[in-house]
């Protein structure tokens, strides 16, 4: 493994691989190395540091290796936060190391707020990246609205180091909420939970997260929870209205700010599934299909947790569980063998443009 401090050295390492039929596996802090991969590691962890934070412009720029914790602390000092709420997956994946901003962007990591505020890809305003030819390119910029040319920011975000090595990221950020509240119902089955979450998510109360923890995964009776984040008075008002609105689904309790924050941190980090499987997937799907898929996973011996009102299903179990996947479901392995996904020819040609010598090719 090498971990260059400067972009020029990252660039040189890639250029050399391109010239010599070499390969690199791009890594950040190494916390998501639950994925298989044979090649030498080019770590971006030493290319770090916040370049600037302009709180009034809702923008922060940092190098890829900057620890997420450092970015979060800088934002927090100005009362702001990362909108996509990227998780810390170390406990879930049984890895060590320091989660980096670059790793979060390269995997389009997003947490419970995904359903309301979007994923990382929705907030990346600009990138610098090194292509497989060892050239540095810029995409986007530092302003909140920009449609100039093709949107390579979105293409690179979530490309898992297979289209380029992202070296610097400019992100949109937002004020952190003054108060966090949670309305939670215990004892619902998966189908009832999805119905309750759908009711919450279609309410006018700006529900910012909706998760269901199955009885098998940490909670004795199963818990269906929805979050509201805003100024204190709004949170109190909306939690109360939401609880009333959900009465037909079950009796709800309201969590305090403190309890809400720690509960959603657990959900964010998928803590209920930690230690439950040699393989772990993040499955995206239609909420209306979530209960059926959860039942299928359970029948095949897996454990699950729902996020995004059922639009995200975390699945833990034996590697063979991937065989249980069906149409209309997107399985992405967080740990274990990558799940193949068919690719259109024009998209393979885009890959060839960005990485003609297969420097970043998956092993």
């Amino acid at each position, binding site marked *: 493994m090498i971990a260059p401090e400067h972009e020029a050295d990252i660039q040189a390492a890639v250029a050399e691989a391109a010239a010599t039929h070499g390969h690199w596996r791009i890594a950040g802090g190494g916390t998501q190395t639950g994925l298989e991969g044979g090649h030498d590691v080019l770590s971006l962890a030493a290319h770090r540091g916040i370049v600037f934070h302009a709180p009034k412009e809702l923008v922060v720029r940092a190098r890829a290796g900057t620890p997420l914790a450092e970015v979060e602390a800088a934002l927090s000092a100005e009362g702001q936060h990362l909108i996509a709420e990227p998780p810390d997956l170390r406990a879930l994946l049984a890895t060590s190391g320091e989660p980096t901003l670059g790793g979060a962007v390269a995997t389009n990591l997003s947490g419970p707020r995904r359903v309301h505020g979007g994923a990382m890809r929705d907030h990346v305003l600009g990138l610098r990246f090194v292509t497989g030819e060892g050239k540095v390119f810029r995409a986007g910029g530092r302003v909140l609205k920009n449609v100039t040319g*093709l949107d390579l920011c979105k293409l690179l975000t979530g490309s898992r180091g297979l289209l380029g090595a992202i070296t610097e990221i400019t992100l949109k950020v937002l004020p952190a909420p003054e108060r966090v509240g949670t309305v939670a119902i215990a004892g619902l089955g998966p189908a009832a939970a999805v119905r309750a979450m759908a009711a919450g*998510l279609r309410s006018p109360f700006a529900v910012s997260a909706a998760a269901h923890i199955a009885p098998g995964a940490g909670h004795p009776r199963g818990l269906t929870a929805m979050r509201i984040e805003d100024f204190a008075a709004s949170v109190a008002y909306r939690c109360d209205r939401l609880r009333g609105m959900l009465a037909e689904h079950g009796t709800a309790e309201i969590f305090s700010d403190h309890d809400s924050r720690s509960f959603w941190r657990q959900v964010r980090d998928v803590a209920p599934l930690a230690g439950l499987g040699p393989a772990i997937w993040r499955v995206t799907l239609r909420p209306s299909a979530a209960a059926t898929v959860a039942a299928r996973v359970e029948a095949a011996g897996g454990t699950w947790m729902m996020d995004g009102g059922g639009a995200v299903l975390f699945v833990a179990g034996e590697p063979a569980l991937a065989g249980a996947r069906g149409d209309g479901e997107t399985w992405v392995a967080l740990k274990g063998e990558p799940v193949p996904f068919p690719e259109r020819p024009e998209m393979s040609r885009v890959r060839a443009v960005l990485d003609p010598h297969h420097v970043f090719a998956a092993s």
Partner: protein
Amino acid sequence: MIRQPEPKQDVLDRREAIVAGLRGILPDDAVIAAPLELKPYETDGLSAYRQPPLAVVLPRSTEEVAAVMRLLSREGVRVIPRGAGTSLSGGALPMADAVVIALARMNRILEIDETDRFAVVEAGVTNLAITEAVKGRGFFYAPDPSSQLACMIGGNVAMNSGGAHCLRYGVTSNNVLGLRAVTVEGEIITIGGKYPDAAPTDWLGLVVGSEGQLLVVTEVIVRILPLPEGARAMLAGFRSNEVAGACVDAIISSGIIPVALEFMDRPAIHACEAFAHAGYPLDAEAMLIIEVEGSEAEQDALLERIRAICERFDPVSMRVSQTPEESAAIWKGRKGAFGAVGRISPDYMCMDGTIPTSRLAEVLGRIRQMSAEYGLEVANIFHAGDGNLHPLVMFDANDPESQQRAEAFGADILRLCVEVGGCLTGEHGVGVEKRDLMGEQFEPEELALQRRIKGAFDPGWLLNPAKVFPLVDA
């Protein structure tokens, strides 16, 4: 007019055969080739540029689009996808040897799902029609360009359009889950799906905003959001652009993200007031329209906080609307701003750069200076929260010299946006209008990379060519 590539002579020579071929695969009423009937398609919202196409087709289904694309790619014919033709950057401007594929007849809403909160609509459905279709069930489609009555979702996807409420709800790209589209070879493909993050790699994000360069979009799966309990606006007038800009900073710093935060300078205030009689402060140098959402009590609380912040900046006037009618009146002037400027000047050019919001006062100062130098009036409207600036440069299209000056002035404004750390276009797209300015923002190598990505989808450069990227032989 901007330089366009020479039409392909062999295509012009085969015009009749190509039209006959199109008539062979589409019903008669779906192929337009008579010169008079081509007239409505010769331009878009950038009406200074005009060029009738070779023919226009009006397909009714994805399959028809695919059949047309198979024929045209085989014949090597250029293709211009078109929605409502409201593009302000000349994105839908035809070429003499090109066939326009107008999606207007693909205007069906195919599916609405309240549980999974999406709608599937054909590319020719208007932006407003989506919200109209889901409103009764308590939903709306968030991006709201001022042209929303006319512009179509296919055009919105192509341009990644924004609106006054995108500070809170994002632009088109943040609100689209999937697409059905036709490749240049005429193959039907789907990208994304009926739920977020449906594809592990974000091809969807690449295609949205690609200005018709990569695919012809025929269906769009959009995210629909629950309507808020209510919304209300206030307005505040200030003594200078600087002070109004500082007030915007203070609002954002207080942790409030209003759903809309619009800025108008003195010329814009006067033009809009003369038009809408909205009670705008004529003695103010700059004015903000600020909108919040929530229950009555939540609106009251937020507006009270914002009022207190504005108070610190010595406002010349302030009005918090008490009723939805008053809010509508406040918005009427802003929403009619382009029309209002149209009434005081025979013609205007609407620019669309984005700047870091901290540079607002400086940029407006320099625009004013340039306005004096060029001898042309300019009114500035600004999505203040996100830095998207719309200077409206007034000129007289009957006077070619005035038009040339306006174009030069507009280009200087966009150069200035790039110089201060912003970009050429925040929401209207590059189109043909800003094509030759791309070199101001991108290095030649960066443009070459983008061109190669376009080429990966469209190796023969048949899809909406001569837009977005400067001509290579130039």
